[in-house]
């Protein structure tokens, strides 16, 4: 393992390799415990016989209002989804606000209203909270943390070690919409009205999937770091290889266009309303049928399979039939001209 830098870099929050370094070199050794070491989207716990999932995320998105949502919507959906991909029914959320002195009250109300709306949509309650206000300049407008508690669905066992060669890998729809919706304005790009963040609660979809297809081996929401990073994590944790087919990966032409302009790779773009499902080949159709009946996963498709070879690695079969490694994200993606 290479030596850690002496300062925190933006890349340490990118969800890619530097984030992993921070977790593996600092968090895990300090906090050592079984639940954390699993490094899932949330911790699975048992309290007095009741099986729970528990997760947290902080939301620092900029701009805080973007096509298709705002930071409040994101804060509820993100945590709901992390619980859902643990195999839990999300039930209760906490909300911790850090507000910058001078934030417009109207904006704050709007953000809170989005949170309430999404909580209702997801069927969860925001039951406890905290608000801190810091001096002008000590935070950029508003940051929100949500933590969530859910009840593990009975009979469900989402775990990396259940990922096995031969399984199909399904993504629930077009990739990169969220990242592009959030960043385009910053770079002077105007998206057509229909391209908006995919931010949405996935728990009802996932609960349906897990109820009807309890054999599902693994779920994950490809947020920061995108599909590529998420699959790399799973490949390592499961000790398997992943083979993706570029022709199958759903990316909208508009998203491709922004990537071409700024030199980004769509497979590393964050999603906020997508889920990746690992399931035995024979059950793929069943999963897809359920997904296609919903609005959020209408474009779901198989994008690849689990392999025995290339353990811990993700390989992409390209449009021209070539093969290449699809590595974890290293540092954030920056707009570039070469």
């Amino acid at each position, binding site marked *: 393992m290479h030596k850690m830098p002496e300062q925190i870099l933006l890349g340490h929050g990118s969800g890619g390799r530097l984030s992993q370094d921070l977790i593996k070199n600092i968090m895990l050794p300090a906090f050592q415990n079984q639940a954390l070491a699993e490094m899932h989207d949330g911790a699975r716990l048992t309290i007095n016989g009741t099986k729970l999932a528990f997760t947290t995320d902080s939301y620092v998105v900029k701009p805080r209002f973007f096509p298709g949502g705002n930071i409040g919507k994101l804060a509820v959906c993100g945590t709901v989804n992390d619980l859902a991909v643990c195999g839990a029914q999300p039930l209760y959320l906490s909300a911790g606000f850090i507000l910058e002195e001078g934030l417009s009250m109207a904006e704050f109300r709007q953000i809170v209203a989005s949170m309430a709306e999404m909580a209702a949509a997801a069927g969860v309650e925001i039951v406890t909270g905290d608000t801190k206000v810091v001096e002008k300049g000590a935070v950029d407008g508003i940051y929100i943390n949500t933590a969530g508690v859910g009840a593990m669905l009975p009979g469900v066992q989402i775990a990396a070690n259940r990922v096995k060669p031969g399984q199909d890998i399904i993504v629930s729809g077009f990739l990169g919409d969220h990242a592009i919706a959030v960043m*385009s304005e910053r770079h*002077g*790009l*105007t*998206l*057509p009205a229909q*391209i908006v963040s995919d931010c949405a609660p996935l728990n009802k979809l996932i609960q349906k999937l897990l109820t009807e297809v309890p054999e599902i081996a693994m779920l994950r929401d490809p947020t920061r770091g995108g599909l590529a990073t998420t699959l790399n994590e799973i490949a390592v944790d499961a000790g398997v290889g992943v083979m993706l087919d570029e022709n199958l990966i759903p990316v909208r*032409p*508009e998203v*491709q*266009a*922004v990537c*071409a*302009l700024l*030199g980004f790779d769509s497979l590393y773009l964050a999603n906020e309303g997508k889920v990746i499902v690992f399931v035995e080949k024979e059950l793929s159709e069943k999963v897809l049928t359920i997904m296609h009946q919903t609005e959020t996963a209408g474009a779901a498709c198989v994008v690849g399979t689990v392999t025995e070879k290339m353990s811990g690695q993700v390989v992409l079969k390209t449009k021209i*039939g070539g093969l290449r490694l699809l590595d974890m994200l290293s540092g954030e993606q920056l707009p*570039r*001209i*070469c």
Partner: protein
Amino acid sequence: MCLAVPAKIIECNGFMATVDISGVTRQVSLMLLPEAVVGDYVLIHAGFAIQSIDEEEALRTLELFKELEQYASNS
């Protein structure tokens, strides 16, 4: 060494133009391609249109590639 993408000019306004790239639009400068007009396909680099795209040539290349479908094997 120079990322550049094709785009279509959908509006001109002096030395600035709005271009469309698969539905995404952006303002670009026409300073380096002053003769470009609405409807032209141009190559965009670093916020400038740097060359016009020859549609006929583009089509010719595409047609050539298409004809090669017969060579498709399950590689």
